[in-house]
């Protein structure tokens, strides 16, 4: 690999595969090599800088925001593949939806739809009851491994953590009332005329305009309200009492037991920014949370003696990275398989 890099001109650098790779897609190995080479050849520093600048200036048009298309095409590919595998006799030209074929199908679907709409309209007209104030609700659910961000009819923004549900009306009336299960972070638009109320079982949380996190587990009957900004009032029907919460305060309601404390932002709210944080967590808590976060199942094997507790934070890391980090200080081995993760306690 010993090349005469010190004799290189700018042209030589920009046409050299190894140099170019370092500039465009640096790896640890390439960085190490070139940094040390530059350090031992300071007279070449300027030429290298020019070459870098040249390489980084060459741009082509790059398509942005492809996620929707990417997902849609994936879905169609899998659908086509399924059709072909269950019906091997059908020729490819029939199922491959290239351009024109797709248009034809879309057209027939549209015609079918409008026809049935016509029919519906005709029959409905006669039996139309008196117009009443019927509220139409929307229910959004997330599964294990999913998070969802959406906007409510008043412009407030909510983010659902995994395995959570939010129910809200398509339009708010005199009050803005929603209900939820699981964990949701709210950023409520200020409206002094319309209070925003979140119902979680016996507990309801009222705000005028603020950002806060609610964690409600119906099975355990525990509601946790944490305030990021603004002010919140929490009322419990079971004890007919109200509590006020300020930023950085969290209220935990356990049937008739209430406790207020200060909270660590990353620990409680980090999830909405992709931060997975643990504090003195044992292996059961760790696997339970990872299960929900990554949508994986765990199989824990080994002696059930007292395990070390783990504290740490991970931001947007893969499951493997997180397990690497935790297993290092907590003494267990893990292996990731197609359908589950096996933990071997030591």
């Amino acid at each position: 690999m010993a090349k005469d890099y010190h004799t290189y001109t700018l042209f030589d650098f920009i046409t050299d595969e190894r140099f170019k790779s370092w500039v465009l897609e640096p790896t640890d190995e390439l960085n190490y090599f070139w940094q040390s080479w530059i350090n031992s050849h300071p007279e070449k520093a300027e030429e290298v800088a020019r070459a870098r600048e040249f390489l980084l200036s060459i741009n082509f048009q790059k398509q942005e925001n492809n996620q929707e298309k990417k997902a849609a095409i994936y879905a169609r590919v899998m659908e086509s593949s399924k059709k072909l595998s269950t019906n091997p006799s059908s020729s490819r030209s029939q199922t491959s939806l290239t351009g024109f074929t797709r248009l034809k199908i879309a057209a027939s679907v549209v015609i079918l739809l409008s026809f049935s709409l016509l029919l519906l309209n005709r029959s409905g007209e006669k039996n139309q009851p008196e117009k009443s104030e019927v509220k139409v609700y929307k229910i959004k659910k997330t599964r294990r491994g999913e998070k969802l961000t959406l906007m409510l009819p008043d412009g407030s923004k909510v983010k659902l953590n995994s395995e959570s549900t939010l129910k809200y009306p398509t339009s708010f009336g005199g009050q803005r009332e929603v209900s939820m299960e699981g964990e949701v972070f709210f950023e409520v638009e200020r409206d002094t005329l319309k209070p925003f109320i979140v119902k979680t079982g016996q507990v309801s949380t009222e705000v005028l305009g603020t950002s806060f996190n609610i964690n409600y587990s119906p099975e355990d009957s525990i509601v946790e309200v944490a305030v990021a900004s603004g002010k919140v009032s929490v009322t419990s029907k079971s004890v007919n009492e109200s509590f006020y919460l300020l930023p950085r305060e969290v209220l935990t309601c356990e049937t008739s037991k209430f406790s207020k404390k200060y909270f660590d932002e990353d620990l409680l709210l980090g999830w909405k920014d992709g931060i997975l944080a643990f504090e003195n967590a044992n292996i059961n808590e760790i696997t339970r949370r990872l299960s929900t976060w990554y949508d994986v199942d765990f199989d824990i094997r080994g002696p059930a003696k007292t395990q070390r507790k783990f504290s740490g934070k991970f931001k947007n890391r893969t499951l493997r990275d997180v397990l690497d980090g935790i297993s290092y200080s907590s003494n267990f081995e893990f292996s990731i398989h197609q359908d589950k993760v096996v933990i071997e306690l030591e």
Partner: protein
Amino acid sequence: MKNQSNSIPFVEKEDEENNCEAKENEKLFYSRRHYSLKDKPDKAIWRAFQQKHEGAFSFIYDQYFETLYNYGCQVTRDTAIVEDLLQDFFVGLRLSRQKTSEVSCIKAYLLKSFRRKVIRHLKKKKILFLDKGFSEGNFTISFHHDMQFMNTQFQQEQQKYIEQMLNKLTRREREAIYYFYFENLDYKSISQVMELSSAKSSRNLIYKALASLKKNKHMFPEWLQYSVMLWI
């Protein structure tokens, strides 16, 4: 590719009826089966794909969709055609997966196969004319450095001229530059993709392209010629 996106561990679902501005990264098909594939060599991933490992397919799709999509959009402005071709391509890939031989560089293999498909399609529709000359609008190069401080007009003029010169290169030369400087392929892979005889052929193509910049410097205004010489 200059910035390979980092895989995100959880999945951000997108709400179809909702026009929430906070659109975060969405990888609906990114499943836990991916984790073990990230560090594996291409040969192993392709072998897994051949053996009908679904995680391998979604990994390949996830990693290289943008590469193929960007390529398609260099060649035609009609994104609908590119999307249809991509869909067809991946369906076909799955159908014939057991028939393919060993693949040591998945990116180059996919680009080569997709390129063939795109060219065949566009030729059939008489959209693409692959003559030796240059055709505008394909593989258009823009020459600018985001990080640079564009303080002097001199620098801006210089960049503009270099850009003009680069776009006067033949289509083939610009295509080679695309693979070399944008997709970061090596000479051997470029030859594979463009179906040239050897790694030397693609190296010559790049050399010729850049040398013509030097050759054409007389087309630059005199005050610019000196600095252009500094480039190459």
